């Protein structure tokens, strides 16, 4: 009894402290979308990754790099499911710098599967100059490098419901979060108002608008759909082995459950006649 009341008291105290923390953040909390790759049996939706790749390639890649993303990844299991031939076609549509050759000169050649995604700018300084001083972050692990604050007790229940989609939910919300600034807010020149960006003023102009990217599979060509697709694609970029991880995880669990069951009954049998 005493134990329980102490614990409850502590929980209550923590809850009181937690409340202002959420309020103080001041940024809207992203909505939790339903993702195909969430939960214990989640896996990427190939169609969605292909659409997301298209959005990335046609829109985001003009400002953002993805240096750990190789053309070969496009054909790797658990990804967007392109054939190797298709991945080669994508690669060869880009020119990359190679060399030096026998003459000691650098030269341009069509991309190969072993090349990484060509960066839009030669270096960070060039990227900043082109973007009003702000640096468009590399996409490779961005979906794992962003999060949002979940107070108590949400962060505890998240461990049980296996919520790991903070980053994608944030990115989706960010792309949807370009709204008119509330009356009385002055937006700095070169910045744009966004409900979800910390501080609300982001250097990235609203990158997506309805109908901008053509989908051939009948999916709606709306900002909402584009944002979902490109966010899912970024999750895959950040965690390319997610499918395998969850699949193997399930096998591991089946094994461990059976093993622990057997051990439990063995233990029971061994200790049967021993009072303890």
């Amino acid at each position, binding site marked *: 009894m005493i134990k329980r009341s102490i614990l409850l*008291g502590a929980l209550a105290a923590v809850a009181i402290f937690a409340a202002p923390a959420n309020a103080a953040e001041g940024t809207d909390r992203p909505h939790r979308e339903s993702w195909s790759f969430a939960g214990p049996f989640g896996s990427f939706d190939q169609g969605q990754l292909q659409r997301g790749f298209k959005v990335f390639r046609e829109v985001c890649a003009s400002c953002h790099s993805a240096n750990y993303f190789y053309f070969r990844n496009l054909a790797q299991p658990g990804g967007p499911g392109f054939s190797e031939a298709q991945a080669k076609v994508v690669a060869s549509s880009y020119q990359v710098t190679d060399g030096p050759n026998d003459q000691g000169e650098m030269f341009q050649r069509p991309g190969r599967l072993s090349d990484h995604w060509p960066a839009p700018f030669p270096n960070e300084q060039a990227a900043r100059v082109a973007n009003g001083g702000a640096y468009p972050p590399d996409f490779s692990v961005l979906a*794992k490098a962003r999060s949002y604050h979940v107070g108590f007790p949400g962060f505890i229940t998240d461990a049980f419901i*296996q919520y790991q989609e903070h980053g994608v939910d944030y990115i989706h919300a960010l792309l949807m979060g370009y709204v008119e600034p509330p009356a009385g807010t002055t937006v700095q020149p070169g910045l744009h108002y966004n409900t979800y960006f*910390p501080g609300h003023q982001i250097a990235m102009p609203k990158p997506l608008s309805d109908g901008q990217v053509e989908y051939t599979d009948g999916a709606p060509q709306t900002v909402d759909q584009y944002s979902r697709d490109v966010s899912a694609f970024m999750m895959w970029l950040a965690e390319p082995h997610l499918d395998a991880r969850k699949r193997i995880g399930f096998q591991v*669990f089946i094994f461990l459950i059976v093993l622990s069951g057997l051990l439990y009954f063995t233990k029971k049998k061994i200790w049967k006649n021993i009072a303890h």
Partner: protein
Amino acid sequence: MEGHSTYQPQGKIARWFESRLPLVGLLHSSAVSYPTPRNLNYLWTFGGILTFMLICQIVSGIVLAMHYTAYAPVSFARVEHIMRDVNYGWLIRYIHANGASMFFIAVYIHIFRGMYYGSYKAPREVLWILGVIIYLLMMATAFMGYVLPWGQMSYWGATVITNLFSAIPYVGETIVLWLWGGYSVGDPTLNRFFSLHYLLPFMIAGIVGLHIWALHHVGQNNPDGIDVKSVAKDTVPFTPYATIKDVFAMVVFIMFFAWFVFYIPNYLGHSDNYIPANPLATPAHIVPEWYFLPFYAILRSVPDKLGGVLAMFGAIAVLAFLPWLDTSKVRSARYRPLFKQFFWIFAVVAVGLGYLGAMPAEGGYVIASRILTVYYFVHFLVILPVLGLIERPSVMPASIADAVLARGAKGAAAPGAKA
């Protein structure tokens, strides 16, 4: 408690070897015939779990080191290379990163178990102090390991923690420069941390050896905190009784571990550590790994830098003096009605400090951290010494066997009967 070996080498070669190096006999006496109190509960399985976790960290760490490079401009990319290109590299890295947390969860349960049942009291003081040393080395190892992926939290965590040494009067600044190997955390720091991160786990393994040696010399404590009076009545042989229980508990623990590795591998980490280290951009909140949070809260609760550092290290050092701060002759909280309550209050305070360590150091949080920090020390320096003098322990059973039988356990056969 050694010398119970009933091992008889079978066959010529075994006899020849045993008379020259009694290795099998040693293993036999410490892991087969070694008598364990029959009333141990599942909290006693965490020693085995900790040994497993240490081996797990060493094995996964050595494989990571085969693919990792400690060089500031590339370390972040090398870890991503492990995650993406090395076969099952993602698995090994997630095992190692989450394994560190599991190691700490297990060690905290192990330490609180010791506090609850008075396992630090005579004749187990040296055993306890060796445990505190292991805990310190674990913290150093994990801290330096967290620097290796060279993300934002790696870099800024290392900056904040190494900077603490600058609080030392006169020589502080010099020590910090010496630790860094430069004028800020940088490539030399990363390299020496990698070297030490490789070394310390093996030192831990050495101390674990001493810890187990001491344990097997004095014997295990038990939930009733009563000494073994009769090996036949009060104990059961380690194998099969403790072995099967340890293995079962370990597999359940591995299940808990696997939940994190396979389903929520980044839950315990900080998203900022997926941003490459950038000396020019300080993260909004610098938070250490969760297992350091109570000490971080203590550090920040003291307004003075040197005071904060002393309080933080003092909070760990005080553990080593626990055997002498607790004046009660009774070990187990089972027979200490007052201590039992203060134990739970202390546990809640420790968790509360952990929570506050994760919150920004402002307003109500600072006040709460100060109150809890004071309580933390009061618990050790005032409550424990006084309790032992004023508390009236409840009636204790005469022996472990009596305690077990009094609890009305079914099946009253003497343990030796079947074994």
